[in-house]
């Protein structure tokens, strides 16, 4: 009985709390019939170049969806014909749609059917510039092949690039070879001779001069004819420069169940179903900061009688919604102009990468990997050309080759050189004889020069990239000492860049014992000394190491990011970055190496002698890695139907990798360029010219004060300077050299320009 009493007392005590103490509060809450929380997604932060040009932003995108649950079988034909009238859809698309609508399935379980994504409305699907209204332009559309034909212009010249049009063989139509526009005024398609559908465009892109129909307006005006359809809009991530910096920016993707799983079991899910997360590149690295914080709006429905109750508004006001915090805007160090130059310079290359970093700070000025891809299509946007990254799988477009490890070839020779000098294995004047080969351990190691270089000292060996000299060094140093020195110089370690990067591999004897069948063999040290065999490094790593060589041995920390922008567009203060580390190398050694690198570009007999920038002195090193491979089995399988493409691929893969890494100005480097051309041929012929173009363009915009002196020095040095004198050449103290004030540097310009000015517009539009 006592227990019963106690229990009832507990109940009453609770009642006193609920009704007596908390009653007033509950009464208030109870007057609100329902409190709902609505998530409001925070806009993802923009990514901007160093001059404030927007590289990634958000755009509203519209799509037309059909709700299969509402579609009755007898309406399918009417729907399809209506869609044919409203949108330019090919017969194949319509047929697929019809099939999908007629498919038997549980109507409750069917997802909305997307008829078309990214309907054209306000922005050009090619370059994302704002479309302008224009007088109606008639166009023709082939319902079979899906081609759009603009009316044939008066002068038979392309309205965009003014090039002369070519007539399409076998049909009545014209075509622009450079921008792939097609023109026809006839009633049938010049390709398949099917009757064309005639429509009118009323929007024009001021940049690429294409005309478009306002598809959203058309659909919206006719939606009452399609009660089964709905117009959906969502915020899309948009990369206006498309192919230009895709590997740096990365792309976003919808969350998966794995993303949604909380970090700890009792935490709520991290993402909503409609969220997107950064998948690669900076979008991934800075995902949390770019995403911002989703807000919560409180939706209150009041119950009838208390509609006008006193204190109601106070109560509603008391229910604080959580404000949406937009994602932070990221300002990059990328110089878009330079990035563009790097892209153009690599246009004849199938695959490769070019990296430009500021030798003083490690800031990445350009990072381009070829072939590139369009992050818009990767982020779920319709490709206006129908061309996607997966069209050229052989060249691995999604792989960022600037941070992917490849055999560094002769660019690695400086490791052996520095190691040998520091360990006093050789002196600069030590000579070895190069007959064109070196016999070691029952194997013949060839020099790249079949005839041999004769008697060479270290400087000449670096200049002409004599392999035999470095075979000797490799033999004298041994693999493990090479590895230790490579590590000291900054190989095999992270460069500090924010995006994912490979670390490269520096094999040791232990590594060979563990990973290679047959274990270690002393010849491996020889191959490693010339950067062949199993040693790998990324172009970015190589650029960083050479920056250190050029700048008194200070290894900079590589970064892509200047910082976050505050709401006023000013940069927020950044956490202090670790300053670069000092190389444990004597300054005399460094001076010697710098001199040798200068000779590579500027001395007759240097491997890059043919590639000298006109406006600045450059020092650097070429590399040619033997990398003949056979196409992978899956690639062979994929290209089985196209023997020509397979042959092209096989031939391409027989070539060597070409490297060039250099810094300029040679005496006080501002920038370091690393160019890697996968299966590109030789470093001197195929990689160095690309670097020269990049360097020239940089110093054309940032004139070097010592330009005149440099030219003089060049003339002076070409008249064969004696070795001793070169060794004594004083290296300018970096502190003493006045830095060029960059008033004209776009990075210093206030970011007040309209941000929706797209410049470069992808491969196709490039004149």
């Amino acid at each position, binding site marked *: *009985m006592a227990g*019963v*009493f106690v*229990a*009832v007392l*507990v*109940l*009453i005590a*609770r*009642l*006193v709390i*609920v*009704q*007596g103490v*908390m*009653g*007033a*509060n*509950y*009464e208030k*809450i*109870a*007057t609100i*019939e*329902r409190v*709902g*929380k609505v998530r409001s997604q925070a806009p993802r932060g923009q990514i901007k170049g160093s001059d404030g040009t927007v590289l990634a932003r958000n755009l509203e995108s519209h799509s037309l969806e059909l709700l299969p649950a509402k579609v009755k079988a007898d309406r399918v034909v009417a729907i399809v014909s209506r869609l044919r009238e409203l949108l330019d859809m090919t017969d194949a698309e319509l047929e697929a749609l019809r099939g999908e609508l007629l498919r038997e399935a549980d109507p409750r379980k069917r997802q909305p059917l997307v008829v078309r994504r990214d309907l054209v409305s306000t922005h050009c699907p090619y370059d994302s510039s704002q479309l302008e209204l224009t007088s109606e332009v008639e166009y023709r559309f082939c319902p079979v092949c899906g081609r759009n034909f603009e009316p044939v212009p008066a002068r038979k010249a392309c309205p965009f690039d003014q090039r002369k049009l070519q007539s399409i063989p076998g049909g009545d139509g014209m075509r622009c070879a450079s921008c792939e526009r097609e023109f026809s005024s006839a009633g049938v398609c010049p390709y398949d001779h099917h009757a064309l559908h005639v429509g009118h465009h009323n929007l024009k892109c001021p940049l690429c001069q294409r005309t478009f129909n306002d598809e959203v307006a058309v659909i919206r005006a006719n939606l009452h004819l399609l009660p089964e359809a709905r117009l959906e809009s969502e915020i899309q991530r948009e990369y206006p420069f498309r192919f230009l910096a895709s590997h740096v920016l990365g792309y976003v993707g919808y969350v998966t169940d794995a993303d949604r799983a909380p970090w700890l079991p*009792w935490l*709520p*899910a991290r993402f909503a179903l409609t969220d997107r997360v950064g998948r690669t590149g900076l979008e991934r690295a800075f995902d949390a900061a770019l995403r911002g914080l989703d807000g919560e709006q409180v939706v209150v429905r009041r*119950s*009838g*009688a*208390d509609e006008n109750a006193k204190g109601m508004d106070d109560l509603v006001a008391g229910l604080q919604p959580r404000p949406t915090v937009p994602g932070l805007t990221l300002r990059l160090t990328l110089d878009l102009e330079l990035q563009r130059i790097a892209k153009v310079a690599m246009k004849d290359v199938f695959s490769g990468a070019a990296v430009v970093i500021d030798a003083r700070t490690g800031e990445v000025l350009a990072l381009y990997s070829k072939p590139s891809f369009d992050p818009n299509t990767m982020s779920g946007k319709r490709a206006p050309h129908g061309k996607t990254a997966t069209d050229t799988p052989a060249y691995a477009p999604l792989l960022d080759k600037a941070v992917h490890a490849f055999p560094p070839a002769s660019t690695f020779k400086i490791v052996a050189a520095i190691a040998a000098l520091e360990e006093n294995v050789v002196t600069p004047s030590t000579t070895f004889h190069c007959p064109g080969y070196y016999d070691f351990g029952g194997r013949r190691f060839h020099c790249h020069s079949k005839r041999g270089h004769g008697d060479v000292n270290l400087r000449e060996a670096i200049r002409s990239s004599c392999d035999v000299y470095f075979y000797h060094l490799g033999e004298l140093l041994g693999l493990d000492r090479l590895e230790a020195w490579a590590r000291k110089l900054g190989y095999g370690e992270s460069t500090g860049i924010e995006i994912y990067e490979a670390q490269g591999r520096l094999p040791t004897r232990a590594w060979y014992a563990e990973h290679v069948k047959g274990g270690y063999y002393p010849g491996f040290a020889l191959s490693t000394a010339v950067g062949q065999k199993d040693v790998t490094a990324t172009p970015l790593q190589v650029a960083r190491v050479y920056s250190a060589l050029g700048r008194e041995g200070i290894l900079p920390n590589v970064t892509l990011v200047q910082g976050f922008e505050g709401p006023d567009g000013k940069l927020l203060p950044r956490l202090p970055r670790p300053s670069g580390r000092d190389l444990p190398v004597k300054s005399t050694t460094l001076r010697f190496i710098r001199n040798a690198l200068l000779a590579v570009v500027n001395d007759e007999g240097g491997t890059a002698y043919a590639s000298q920038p006109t406006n600045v002195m450059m020092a650097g090193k070429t590399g040619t890695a033997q990398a003949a491979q056979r196409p992978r089995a899956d690639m062979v399988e994929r290209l089985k139907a196209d023997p020509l493409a397979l042959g092209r691929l096989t031939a391409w893969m027989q070539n060597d990798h070409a490297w060039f890494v250099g810094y300029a100005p040679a005496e006080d480097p501002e920038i370091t360029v690393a160019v890697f051309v996968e299966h590109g041929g030789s470093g001197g012929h195929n990689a160095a010219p690309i670097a020269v173009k990049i360097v020239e363009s940089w110093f054309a915009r940032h004139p070097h004060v010592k330009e005149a002196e440099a030219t003089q020095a060049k003339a002076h040095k070409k008249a064969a300077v004696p070795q001793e004198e070169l060794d004594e050449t004083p290296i300018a103290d970096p502190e003493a050299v006045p830095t060029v004030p960059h008033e004209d540097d776009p990075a210093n310009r206030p970011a007040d320009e309209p941000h929706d000015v797209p410049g470069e517009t992808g491969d196709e539009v490039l004149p």
Partner: protein
Amino acid sequence: MSVFARIRQPSTLLGLFCVLGLCVIAIENLHFADSMLGTTFHRSQTIWIVVGLIGTGVTAGLDMQFVRRVSPIVYQVLIALLVAVLFFGRDINYSKRWLELGPANIQPSEFMKISIALVLADWFDKKRSQAPWKLRQLLMPVLLILVPVALINREPDLGTSVCVALIALGQVLYDGVQRRTLVLALCVALIGIGLAWKFDVIRDYQKGRAETWWHAMQDDEKAPDTGQGGANRDNWQAEKALWAVGSGRVAGRSDDEARVSVLRHVPFVHTDFALACFAERWGLIGCIFLFGLYLGLVWWALYIADHAQERFDALLAVGVAGLVFWQFFVNAGMVIGLLPVVGVTLPLLSYGGSSALTVLLGAGFLLNISTRRKSR
């Protein structure tokens, strides 16, 4: 002493007052809920209560020896009905608890509550000399309890099965068991609950309710979000009920106010959450009065148990006390946010013929014992 003279004893009068008071409150409360939601539950409930009061009179006059003879048969019939309900039961709210018999829906599990009390009292009385009980000796009563508990849980109806178990447990403890037995049984029960949790005998929604309650008891913010429109559904039920109870405050609200308040959105306001309706309208004062009625009823039953001359009578009275008390405690605790949401009805106040009939039959047994005891 005539029967009426015995009824005039203060304890019996108090008990009858409590029962009749609860009946009146129940019909009034249901009438209000009906007027609010436009339903007609109070009519059928009135019929059930009238039938139940007649049943009270009948059981009060029954010969206890006859009851003891019949009770095992009733128990077996009810077990059969519980099995039948699993196959032919009517599905209401995703649970098969009701058998359709002509115009009425019968809930055998409710009758099982009084039946288990009868059967156990009978069993213990027959083995009279052996208390305190050892675990080994308790095998038979445990079986008697477990079979209906398992069947009821199968429906699924966790609340009722727990109630049946608690009623029986109260009886066993009243009769006395060895301390060792008690500790052992507790351990077994704890392990059993653990295993049931682990192997999904306890269903997910039940776990969810328990977890929500646990979180709500600690800190409102930590309640797990199941993603269904923000609030957890179970928590949402309990929250709405709590708001309604709280808005009653000390003195209660007028009918007009209550009719348009959050009460409209309290789920199961006729049955499981009937107390929320009452509490909002009558406030703290009314609730204390109501709790007093239940307390009085339980006190009456325990008083009878203490003063009974026969062991069977005492045990039966304890069973009835448990029947009223456990349901009242679990239900009230649930409505005012002390316990997780479990589908247990409030005796008499909640709509439900079988439930009301069971309680009133129990009251009849109490009356029977109290009016009879002096004659022997």
